[in-house]
């Protein structure tokens, strides 16, 4: 399928020129088209932020929700209709800051959704404050004396919480990003892809070059089924591995555990109330 299938046509994209979100958007379109997914079977949910504008630039179903809340919203969408391919997209602030609790618990719940985090290590849309992934010492309009809180390590956290698919991509690596996103979508269960994305306007520390110098591709020697091995790679803050750090397929998804789908995969909106059964049930209250 041509990735143009996902183009919305002549629309204005409001990111800054040179922003890492542009190549990311292209990778995402490529990944979706490459999997042969019809836009009608794809639902892209997002929070609020620069990254979270992404669904407006895609021709498919979309729900641009609240800052920090894309993951529970996507969980609800998927639970109501298993036939949909559901992605939850947002920035590092969106997903690890405001949405931090959902990050933890979505992993535990394991809905079959793909979580793409545009990690530019800064709050873009609100003009450059520190995000949970901002490096120590980074000076911002609020962190005037430099960031003092330890940056979060989302990949390591995801692994310890029990995520079954954990990967890192870099917008500078279009091809790699496409294939990682595709693997993440194909994975049954919650899949995290943390995508290093330079913000040319507000992050003067973690630039394209900074990322280029520190990233490397995982090769065959890396076993994505070895949890402690993956954790070790994830804990390395000096050299940033690109690729699938951890993947352990086979765990039941959230939807698998729902009794509504025990007998039928039919989307919930197609179902009607069994009034006879309800009548019987109410009769038990006599």
């Amino acid at each position, binding site marked *: 399928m041509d990735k143009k299938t996902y183009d919305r046509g002549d629309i204005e994209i409001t990111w800054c020129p040179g922003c890492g979100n542009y190549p990311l958007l292209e990778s995402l379109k490529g990944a979706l088209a490459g999997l042969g997914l019809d836009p009608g079977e794809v639902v892209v949910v997002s929070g609020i932020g620069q990254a979270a504008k992404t669904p407006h630039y895609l021709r498919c179903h979309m729900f641009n929700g*609240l800052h920090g809340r894309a993951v529970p919203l996507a969980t609800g969408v998927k639970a*109501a209709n298993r036939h949909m391919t559901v992605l939850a997209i947002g920035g590092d602030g969106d997903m690890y800051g405001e949405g931090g609790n959902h990050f933890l618990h979505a992993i535990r719940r394991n809905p079959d959704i793909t979580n793409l985090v545009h990690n530019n290590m800064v709050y873009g849309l609100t003009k450059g404050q520190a995000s949970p992934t901002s490096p120590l010492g980074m000076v911002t309009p609020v962190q005037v004396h430099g960031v003092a809180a330890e940056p979060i390590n989302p990949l390591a956290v995801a692994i310890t919480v029990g995520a079954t698919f954990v990967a890192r991509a870099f917008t500078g690596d279009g091809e790699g990003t496409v294939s990682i996103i595709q693997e993440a979508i194909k994975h049954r269960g919650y899949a995290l892809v943390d995508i290093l994305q330079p913000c040319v306007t507000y992050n003067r520390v973690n630039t394209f070059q900074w990322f280029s110098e520190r990233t490397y591709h995982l090769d065959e020697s890396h076993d994505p089924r070895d949890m402690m091995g993956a954790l070790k790679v994830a804990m390395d803050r000096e050299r940033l591995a690109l690729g699938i750090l951890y993947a352990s397929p086979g765990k039941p998804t959230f939807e698998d555990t729902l009794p509504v789908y025990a007998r039928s995969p039919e989307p919930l909106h197609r179902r009607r109330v069994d009034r006879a059964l309800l009548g019987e049930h109410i009769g038990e209250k006599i």
Partner: protein
Amino acid sequence: MADRMDERVRDVTIVVGGEAGQGIQTIEFILTRVLKRSGYHVFATKEYMSRIRGGSNSTLIRVGSQRVPANVDRIDLLVPLDSGALTHLAGRISKDTLIIGEKKALKTEHNCVDIPFAAMAEEAGGKIYANTVAIGFLCGILEADLAILENYLKEYFGRKGKEIVARNVQAAGTGYRAGGEMRSAGRVAFSIDRDPSVAGNLLVSGAEAVSLGAISGGCRFISSYPMSPGTAILTYLSRHSEKFGIVAEQAEDEIAAVNMAVGASYAGARAMVTTSGGGFALMEEGVSLAGITETPLVIHLGQRPGPATGMATRTEQADLDLALYAGHGEFPRIIYAPGRTEDAFVLTHRAFNMADRYQVPVFVLTDQYFLDSYYSTSSLGDDAVFNEDHVIETDESYMRYRLTEDGISPRGVPGFGTGLVAVDSHEHTEEGHITEEIGVRNAMMDKRMGKIRAILADSVPPVLTGPEDYRVLVVGWGSNFHIIAEAVQLLRKDDISCLHFSQVFPLPPDTAELLDRAEVTVVVENNFGGQFARLLRAHTGFEAGHRILQYDGRPFCSELLARKILKIARRN
């Protein structure tokens, strides 16, 4: 005011008090069912502390020839399971209260019939059967049917094995006989007529009625975080999730809960959340999201006293304002506050239809008192309800927010039809994409807010009880329905009526007219501020002359309320 003794003939109020974990709930459960099957109208309500064991709780059971589903202060028969119950209930024990139990252990100076439940239980096989003796005793005193009691005990304890059943039956019999003897001895003066048709009545609590209304309304998705008294709905739908095909998910917090529900609703599942004030406060941003995205959402808000943690297991009606103005920005909403269990069923059902019809958040506003009370009722009205279907199959030209005459854009869901469904928390175009354009903003605000007109025309009118040509009008809303009705009935005045609102927002169209007709208006509310009275004033300009407010965490009592109403009626 009516003669109390006269009332007493028609109905008896039993209170069982004791520590959490002493089995009050079991007594209440069995007793109400056996009495109902014996042909008595029953009503039960409870009050309890926020703890798992110990403390002092009580349940109030009213038994009558007619329906008496309202809380009262008076206690006719008091069964204290420990001496703490007497302290706890001291303020409500009068000279007419008959205390039943082991006099020595209770050390009370009140009117006490010495019944050694524990000793009687030992006969049947152990102290553990004391509660069953008490049940038997109460059935005996009330002339319930012994066979029905025995059968019920067999049903209830069946899975515990024959021996347990036999001992319970024996204990009940012992109690029953003692009760009968006391009755014969003329120590009690009830004469409650039986109504055989009551045997076939339902016993449904407020919480069950809301839950059943949700199932009936086609609820397919509930996501919530436990919080008293809202949890009951989550528990009920969870328990029956397989049977009725419902996703019931305990979220990590209330924010996740509301966002999951909005997501499920976007995908076409009728969805709800249930919570209480504090949890709801956390959901407000999500309610605003439902508002701007026009995603149907049903919110059950079970009120309890605030602020903050307040009194976690008590009752209050102080979150009307919260529901009314919840969420930032302006968007339409509907708030139902059922007063009767039947209303709770029908209105919760209706909430799902209305949410879908108008694509707005709809509240079902209850409280602890309402949720934890139940009474015999012939039907929930489930035959009269049906589910509307407002989801359309989309085609390629589909636009989620198409501007239409009545402001309602046909609602598509992803995967049903060939259209794409784009939904946005920003102000958006007809296609559902972000915009800051003035013209579109105005059109979208007008479209959303304009729906209020149609919603108004589709109102649930208030219920007037009493004469049409009232001089005094007692106004209530939500859980106060029966309490106000009984209070006014006790007064036996032909110029006092009650007007009960179960749709509290928007105010039904004829509200002002109904209020204006009264010379004296009294608004009765379980809160400090008189929130409903203020709502009436803000929207109709009508200022209620009088307000009866209570904010101690307890429901009104009909006879105490009657006195307050009478005082106002006499002076004005």
